């Protein structure tokens, strides 16, 4: 049987002209008639080093000063005012004048051949120090959560632009026929700030928007038939709808109807492929233990395992949000037990994902990204009359990437003695975007979409590929 999902129609490909990479001339379109399908595989601008992305987003802004950066000077000057030269003209979300430096109480040590510094809070990360490319000179532009998350995901701080996952699937499609190309997973006490705008397709077609999957149970809304509709009855239903649609197709000749028929077939397939995806019974106990995953629960660990399973099934871009990293120092936000809690939730599974991908030979093809929307200030923040946390900080923070042609075991980026400013090897958010796109086969300046009279890109008018960190 011909897979109706890949059946082509003439009108589609014409209508799709505005959707292709850049602007495509008519002749090319004729040749591309077979590729009418938003998720059809397309070539990028140059051969890709990686196929997939798993992006672990630590929503709230993890403190680089408690996790990745040991700064003895910060401890030495604890309780003193930072030098004027550092804070002059700077704006913060909450800190007022007179905020004093706050030393870190965490113990740090160097690990692996790379001699990467890690704090005691990340014991499992020690296992991947030499697999990971450590970016300690990250910089961003925006210091409120919502706008900063939008900036990290869409390159722009106001809602309405396409997210990275949308750009990537728009550019090269997805290999999965039964699952969406861009999937979003979430764990933690609440959804990330800025919500659906973070995985929005913006002005790209909505087929490219991220599809939120729940970590357990039915991953997609409306996946289950209404009560009383058995799979057999659903099959009858899809069949009769299909035959009515084909009758109408004969009358009107509108190829949109065959797309609709295909959509019903794919929906029907998703109804069985999605539960299979969520079923961990085929995973060995060793794998479950590696992640710390427990079938049936809704945890970050489960989501990491799910991310691997999604990538295995051809999903192009998986994004995991874990919330609760906003450690200002108030109740539930201390750098003490509250930070310990959230690092415990993510440390093991984050490392496990890298290890598992590697042992299955998937790491070469998959870029794993880990990080938040910004870092945290070297100055302490006072909440409830106690200095127990740090404010949002945009001038320096740490992220890491692994696989997908990034230099394993590399430390890139140096910050000053307080971890305040990047002094060397800085990577701006736009540069990170440019580099990720590069590995996926795109020239970030040419991955554009014309909207309201102008060519838009993920990197706006900025961004440089950071060649130094690539293999």
């Amino acid at each position: 049987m011909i897979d109706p999902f890949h059946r082509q129609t003439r009108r589609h490909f014409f209508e799709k002209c505005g959707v292709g990479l850049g602007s495509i001339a008519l002749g090319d379109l004729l040749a591309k008639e077979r590729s009418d399908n938003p998720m059809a595989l397309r070539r990028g601008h140059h051969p890709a080093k990686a196929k997939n992305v798993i992006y672990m987003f630590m929503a709230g802004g993890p403190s680089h000063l408690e996790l990745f950066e040991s700064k003895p000077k910060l401890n030495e000057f604890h309780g003193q005012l930072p030098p004027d030269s550092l804070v002059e003209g700077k704006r913060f979300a909450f800190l007022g004048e007179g905020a004093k430096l706050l030393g870190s109480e965490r113990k740090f040590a160097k690990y692996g051949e790379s001699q990467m510094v890690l704090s005691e809070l990340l014991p499992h990360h020690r296992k991947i120090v030499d697999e990971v490319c450590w970016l300690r000179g990250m910089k961003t532009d925006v210091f409120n959560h919502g706008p900063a998350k939008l900036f990290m995901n869409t390159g722009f701080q106001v809602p309405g632009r396409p997210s990275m996952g949308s750009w990537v699937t728009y550019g090269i499609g997805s290999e999965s026929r039964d699952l969406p190309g861009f999937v979003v997973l979430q764990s933690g006490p609440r959804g990330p700030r800025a919500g659906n705008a973070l995985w929005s397709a913006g002005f790209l077609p909505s087929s490219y928007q991220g599809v939120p999957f729940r970590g357990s149970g039915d991953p997609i809304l409306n996946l289950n038939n209404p009560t009383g509709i058995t799979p057999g009855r659903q099959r009858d239903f899809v069949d009769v709808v299909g035959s009515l649609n084909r009758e109408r197709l004969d009358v009107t000749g509108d190829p949109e109807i065959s797309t609709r028929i295909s959509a019903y077939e794919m929906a029907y397939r998703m109804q069985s492929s999605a539960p299979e995806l969520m079923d961990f019974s085929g995973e060995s106990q060793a794998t479950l233990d590696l992640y710390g995953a427990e079938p049936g629960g809704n945890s970050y660990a489960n989501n990491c395992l799910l991310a691997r399973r999604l990538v295995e099934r051809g999903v192009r871009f998986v994004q995991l949000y874990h919330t609760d990293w906003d450690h200002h120092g108030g109740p539930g936000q201390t750098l003490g037990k509250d930070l310990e809690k959230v690092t415990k939730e993510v440390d093991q599974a984050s490392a496990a994902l890298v290890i598992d991908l590697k042992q299955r030979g998937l790491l070469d093809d998959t870029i794993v990204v880990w990080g938040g929307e910004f870092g945290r200030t070297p100055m302490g923040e006072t909440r409830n009359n106690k200095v127990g946390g740090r404010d949002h900080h945009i001038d320096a923070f740490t992220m890491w990437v692994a696989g997908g042609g990034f230099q394993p075991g590399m430390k890139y980026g140096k910050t000053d003695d307080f971890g305040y400013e990047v002094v060397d090897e800085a990577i701006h958010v736009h540069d990170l975007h440019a580099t990720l796109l590069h590995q996926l086969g795109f020239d970030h300046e040419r991955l554009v979409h014309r909207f309201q009279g102008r060519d838009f890109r993920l990197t706006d008018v900025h961004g440089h590929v950071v060649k130094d960190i690539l293999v």
Partner: protein
Amino acid sequence: MSVVRADCGSDSLTRDPVIGRAPSNPYSPPMAKGSAWATALLISAGLLSAEDTVDFNRDIRPILSDKCFQCHGPDEETLKADLRLDLRDSALGTKAIVPGKSNESLLVERITSDDPDEMMPPPKIKKPVTTEEAALLAKWIDQGANYADHWSFEPLKTDGEKNSIDEFIVAELEKHGLALSPEADPGTLARRLFLDLTGLLPPPNRVDSFLREYETSPDGAVAALVDELLESPHYGERWGRHWLDQARYADSNGYTIDGERVMWPYRDWVIRAVNDNMPFDQFTIEQIAGDLLPDPDKAQLVATGFHRNTLINQEGGTDDEQFRNEEVVDRVNTTGAVWLGLTLGCAQCHTHKFDPITHREYFEMFAFFNSGTDVNNTGATVEVGEGELFLDSPDPKKVSALEAAKKTLAKVTSEKGKRQAEWEKTMTQPVDEAAPAKWIRATPETFKAEGGAPLQLLDDLSLLAGTGAPNETYRIQLPPSENPVAALRLKLLTHESLPQNGPGLAGNGNIVLTSVEFFANGKPITVAQAEHDHAQPNYSSAFTIDGNPDTGWAINVGKGSAPGAKMNAEHEVAYTLAKPLSPGTAIEVVMRHEKNANYNTGRFAWETSATAPPPVAKRKLFTIAKRPTEERSEEDRKFLEAEFAKVDVEQRKAQNEVEAARKELGIGKAVKTMVMRDLPEPRDTFIHLRGDFLRHDEETGALHPGVPAVLPAMEKKPEERDRLDLARWLVRPDHPLTPRVTVNRVWMRYFGKGLVETENDFGTQGAFPTHPELLDWLALTFVDNGWSMKELHRLIANSKTYRQSSNAVPEAAKVDPLNKLLARQNRIRVEAEIVRDAALSASGLLHPGIGGPGVMPPQPEGVYAFTQRKVNWVAADGPDRFHRALYTKFYRSAPYPLLTTFDSPDFQSVCTGRVRSNTPLQSLTLANDEAMFEIAKGLGARTMREVEGSDTDRIRHAFSLCYSRIPSPQELDAVAVFQQKQAQSFSNDKAAADSVAPEEFPDSFTLAEAASWSAVARALLNTDEFITRE
């Protein structure tokens, strides 16, 4: 899965062989070289024959704009080599262009060079000129290199020869050897008109009458139906919704906190204005600057909500000034997009690269909007009652009665302090150490519910109610008491048979008890006070004895409830009588539930006491009242105020009178909706360097409000201009953009795309109109008709062009694959809201009421697994459950899933035209969504209810309800076989049949048959045809 580009973000660059040319192709091979290249290319391009004249606006400007203007265009900052290719003098002066001599023109030399240092555009720009484009440019130069001003900035013009839509369309079709398609089937036509004009499906009997009229006079039948639909109140909902997209209307503030906001009065204003056919110029002025009109009325203030639909960032630690600037930027950009069809936003950071709009001009527009009193907050509001905006010439007597009642209320309110002080004095008596009440549960002698709800006496003497009328009244006769009765107590009790265990019968276990009355021998007993253990905010037990059926006692937990308060638990109210009753009095209790449907009490008991209960709150009250004013804490103050409010009869009476007067007028509950208001002194506006609001261009200094120089000049002096001047300027009759942009968008709704395909970009980067003369003729006619929208609709909807069949025409597709010439209508998948509305109207479940606060239909579980904000989404019971989708509450961070699945935007910013996609998630939604399935059951029930005949007749009826046509034999057969198979399958599966069958259906059907008709209905609602306007 596919994507059909409509608009929002489409800007499809595709040009087809008929109109316009394909723009550059980044993948096309490098340009051929050699001296004879131009000739060769002219032949190979094949798009242009030798005698064709190159049109600057159609053929040349798009190339120059796309490839050259970035460095050789209006932006002085990025200008290279002092060459501006947008100005003919500059181009000629530098010999870039030598008219008539392409081989001497430097432009041609440079764009055809393969020397990386010479070639233009430079390789790093990554926008190579294609061979076809080079050929066009050369030919244009050889023909004299004539420039023309950009078409959309030129005045509207018409040659006066053609005088109908069809003449323009047919003339263009004939040029290409094509003709209009035959008219659509009358049934299809009726369905098309209903969907386009009202967004609902036609009732079958209206289709029948239309078919009869059509037989005698097709034109007359169409004209009559168009007129009828334009007078339908649903027309305002349908076309108001299109406008609300542009207004980025939503019911929440956006960003991360996304708190709820009250803007629905603005939505109602739009519906009303559209239904009233408010001329578009006035419609514009009231929304942009209604507050600045002389003596504006309330509706004109509400209209300014248009620009209050901007986002508000409530996140902690935000700089309000930053987000105020974002709001102003959004107001400028939205105004540019909606009225001018221009991308003003491009000039926010620098002078526009392509269009003649400078950085400075952007901020001159900004200055019009820079003086709002709102600073990333609610700002100015105006009070509006439900339904108020729909009032037609209200009775002046009733209006003045309301005014008088309001005046009294204001007076009473202003004297509250005085009254309270007096009252406080009386509260300083020593605490009354009355003996504690001893409650004895009474055995009801008789009890009944007037609406028929079953009442069952349980062992503990409590009564358990079942479902009866939505608004039940219970009557309970208590036996003559042995002791005197000083107080009665109502106990609410939980029970496992009740929703959420009760104690109420509402879906969440709540009640709204509006009145409790006691009678002795038929005479009312006066109650001194009611005291509860817990009440929902604004639902005090005191409301059960105030005689007002619109207020009552409820027990949900909300802001201000005591910590740990629970709804689904035991609660009580003690009623202290004014005078104790002597022993032996038999008391009748009447409990009324007059406000909310189905909020009846579930399980309860009555108790009596010979002594009045000790005043729970009074000890505290006396202590605090004794405290000197200056020693009272904020909490004390609030407590006293709340206590006084309970006994402040005067205040309540005045309030009730206002409510009563409102009700007389047909106005419901009042809310405060956000409106525009300006500061008395305008803020200074500076250019923001690189668009950064912190970097003012002090050198240029403060700017006066102004409009781009390329557009008609404003008459008023710069220092005197305000928003009202801008509003009036936008709708000047000689404005080149507003009428064109507006008629183009209306056209787009009827044909799936505009005459200018880039409906949001009428600038130089936008598409050239497919029918420029028609566009101008429509725009001029629109203005001449007094900006009447309904006249515009009549023009389009009565045209042969609109009335054509949408079936494919293979011959025409060869010449015009994108159907730009309109040799047929287009089949258009309806918008998200209409998917639901069409289903509601087919099923007969639709609640046809117009306007009012947002509603919550059922939505799937798990929506909030991914949102920062969790909305307390309680699916509505009653009519609100089946209200049209434009009334569904819209939270920007967590929109109603059906809407976004069908491409509703998230209203973060202006949307002038939506995308249309076709995805499996849509299939899952239509097939499985709880709300859709409920509607399918409704349609199944309707099919059974309305047809007594055969199964075949029922299928025919269902087809006419859904598609306004009869089924083909093949369709009939397919559905009949399906229905029989389903009935068979359900007959062996009673549980499944029970879940699938409608709740109510005629006795003549078995349960399995009923389930099979739900299944048929579900199938018919899931076809492509159902959600398509053919």
